[in-house]
């Protein structure tokens, strides 16, 4: 379990990183919590790693009235420990605190997790559920994508060659907004077997229910209001969204959605 030979370079700035990555056989690396094991198993064999952990824009935090922009190389632990602002008043911190285990959180990054796009990962579902925006830098300049468009499939993103996810903009919830994130991981440190988020933000007129750990990109359910007000059952919603999946394979997801809805109902708004 030793990686195949590879070169390693620390990028001096974003432009240099982009140039190195454009050569094609290099891969960007930050916390190395997913790529590292894949390389050790020789399932990933990049010729070169470009370490982007220390790039200034990836470490930056910017606060506006509408959102907090978190650099992509901010670690799960920094979010967990409140070392960066949490626009949601604690939802991010609580999600971060339950990612894998502390050793992973110390090194693993927000951006790295989103770019790895493991369907069962926390940030993929949480950031999609919160309606966050991916900020991408590339040869053509900067572009923005809603998270649901950033993750395009299992372990797939909309990043083009030479592009780097540099930050995530997390919108500030409105007064009285409610949130539920519920995941089922039978053991500490495991990826979720099922997960769901519910956002009920009346002030901003946003409601969103999302399902994770489906082996695909997060699923955003239609007509979230009917789930939140109880006029449609979670079972109906899942059945109509995933008609091809046998009911028994959705049992855990059903439980996750049900419990996320319950959590959101019980949740006190952070900004209330």
């Amino acid at each position, binding site marked *: 379990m030793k*990686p*195949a030979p590879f070169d390693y370079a620390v990028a001096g700035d974003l432009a240099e990183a982009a140039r190195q990555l454009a050569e094609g056989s290099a891969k960007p690396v930050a916390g190395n919590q997913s790529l590292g094991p894949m390389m050790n198993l*020789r399932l990933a064999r990049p010729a070169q790693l470009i370490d982007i952990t220390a790039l200034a824009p990836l470490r930056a935090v910017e606060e506006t009235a509408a959102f907090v922009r978190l650099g992509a190389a901010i670690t799960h632990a920094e979010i967990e420990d409140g070392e960066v602002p949490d626009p949601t008043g604690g939802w991010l911190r609580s999600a971060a605190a339950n990612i894998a285990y502390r050793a992973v959180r110390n090194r693993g990054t927000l951006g790295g997790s989103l770019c790895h796009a493991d369907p069962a990962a926390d940030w993929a579902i949480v950031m999609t559920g919160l309606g966050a925006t991916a900020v991408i830098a590339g040869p053509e300049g900067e572009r923005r994508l809603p998270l649901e468009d950033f993750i395009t499939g299992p372990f797939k993103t909309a990043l083009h060659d030479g592009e780097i996810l540099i930050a995530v903009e997390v919108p500030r919830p409105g007064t009285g907004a409610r949130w539920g994130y519920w995941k089922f991981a*039978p*053991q500490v440190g495991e*990826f979720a077997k099922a997960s769901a988020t519910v956002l009920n933000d009346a002030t901003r007129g946003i409601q969103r229910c999302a399902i994770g750990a489906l082996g695909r990109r997060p699923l955003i359910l239609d007509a979230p209001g009917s789930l939140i007000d109880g006029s449609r059952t979670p079972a109906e919603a899942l059945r109509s969204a995933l008609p091809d999946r046998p009911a028994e394979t959705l049992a855990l997801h059903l*439980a996750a959605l049900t419990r996320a809805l319950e959590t959101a109902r019980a949740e006190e708004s952070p900004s209330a």
Partner: protein
Amino acid sequence: MTRAPADSPEKATSTKGVGARLARREDDRYLRGRGRFIADIRLPGMLDMAFVRSPYAHARLRSVTKPPSGGEWVFTAADLEDVSGIRADSGLPGFRSSLQPILATDKVRHVGEPLAVCLAETRAAAEDLAELVDADFEELPAVHDMMRARDAETPLLHEHWDENVFLETAVDIGFEDAAAGAAVVVKRELRTARQCMAPIEGRGVVAVWDRSLELLTIHSATQMPHIVRTGLAGCLGLDHGQVRVVAPDVGGGFGYKGILLAEEVCAGWLAMKLDRPVRWIEDRREHLTGGANCREHAYTITAYAAADGELLAVDCEAIVDSGAYSSYPFSACLESAQVASILPGPYRMKGYRCRTWSVATNKPPILPFRGVARTGVCFAIELIIDAVARDLKMAPEAIRQRNLVTPEEMPFSNITKKDFDSGDYPEALRRAVEAIDVPGFRERQQRAQTGRKRLGVGLSIFCEQGAHGTSVYHGWGIPMVPGFEQATARLTPDGGLELRVGVQSHGQSLETTLAQIAYEETGIDPAKVKLVHGDTAYTPYSTGTWGSRCIVMAGGAVAAASAVLAQRIRNIAAHLMQAAPDSVVLSDGMARAGTSAVSIEEVARTWYLKPQLLPDDVDPRGLEATEGYKTVKDTGTFSYACHAVTVSVDLDLGHIELLDYVIVEDAGTMINPMVVDGQVLGGAAQGIGTALYEEMPFDSAGQPLASTLADYHLPVAADIPPIRILHMETPSPLSRFGQKGIGESGAIGPPAAIANAVNDALAALGVEVTEVPLTPERVLRAIHGAGMRETQP
């Protein structure tokens, strides 16, 4: 016969000897990171090994081609001249013999089987080289399902056999007559999954050839250096005198380090061939894919009981998936031999019938994991007992009390002629039921009966035969039968004590507990006792550390050698004090007679450096003694325990939460209660792994599906509830201090207790689980009634 369990371990009067909660002498170096494990050994010129392993479960190996560049550092079976494969033949009649090649020759029989070895300055470079080796296979259908291994159309692993069975056994003790009178007959099919033992440190070996001494030194992460030496010398055609095996600090064993590995033989051969040190450090991926596996049993068990719950007879058919080869030294059939003989456990019954099959499959060879077959048979008998109880509407504790051996019957020979030495099983059960508060829990359970989280309580009670000796293992047919255990006690010139034992301590705390035993005999402070172990050059021959034998066997040997040494110390001291030898008492490093005293250090100095002061009739063998030890009878000590657990089962998730866990444990006389607690807790954590998490599934091509720790789920700290251990202390009449082997006990009880608790929780729904691990998927399948027998994905 000794009886009457004492209430508390705190009765110990000594602060350093038998019964003392002495802090572990090992901890200082381990906690400061000063242990020296196999991967810490660095030698000049040492090369790293990497194996090319079979990607197929079953295939003909047509050719192995070395790369054009670097091929001189690649070795295949064709290169291994004068090296024999590994053979471990059971002595039981009908055993079919397998030969495990050191490197594959014409066929591979499991994924991960080594077929070439590559050497380089670093492991990474050796892996680079391994990628360039080309092997040509003709894939064959894999035998992946032990239930179908005996089918006529299933291909043969070993083509000179007539069926894929290492051994079939049958025992029938008055079964038909006893079963005839049964009011209820309850039958279940039960399974335990294949597991991979997972000590924190994997296997590893560093081999060094000394050409001037013609001595091959094998540093190996092993539990049994002497047995490795014997096996290795045989495979390499060396005299025993040409092989020294050293076990450095070893990071856990559990049985995984109790076998001779093809990789060790290979390393030994390479060190001699190249005249350079070589090493192989197993990584977790090769461990999980090609390394040892264990625990996979299937039981069809039927209980016959009277209307009042009296157990009349048990009928069982058990299949053990023994994998591809019979591994050295335990053979492919230890588990099935155990199954047949220990299934009845501490229960009285009039009739018993058991047939077993140790079947060969395209999986790594089965190895005895902590508890060995006891974990499986405890699961089988305890689940069927609960099923009978449900059928008769009896409480689980009531049916057990009805059938458990009583203290009045001790010593007790059960239906399979297992000789229980001592103990009060009904009392252990009673204390467990009381501690977990079954009556109070029943009320809570009732209140939860309509919710989505159901509550249940489960029990398991079992014995752990330990330190069993010659007659038992000869009867089980294993190629390595233990006899006398020896120890050497040597007083050093400064009054310190050196103990030399052939067993090896890798978590058993023997550096502490054996020092406590020596203190008991010599009065020498444990801080001045040095345990020499894990090195064939320094220690008496021993079969090693396994079978919960060390504290009884090595402990007995240390006591015997220390007692002889103590007498010689007393004799010299008596002369120095001009006192009568039988008036001399040893304590706290001093020899005292009346008001006179002389230090043991002074006695030592006199023997070694001032012999002019010795008495004329001094024993010329001096202050060093080697003594052998066997228990009064070699049928083993029987420690026992009752596990009681309460759980909640989430009906939507199939998730099981352990709410409370009690273990009532009788280890006989405890040499060090803290060490006993540690053994029980560690074992229980592994038992919880068996119950809830650990599973090595194989697909229909024989591919292992949990080849990293992301897929092979081990219990972690957060999964282990606070476990309350209550001690009983019924001395064994067979051992030196009344101590009993306890090393495996914790790992035996949890699967049965937890599955019984889950079944208790789900009983109102008419749902029963029959397989471990109880993963959410498996529990949900049971709840949804979607087939409970499917284990192979």
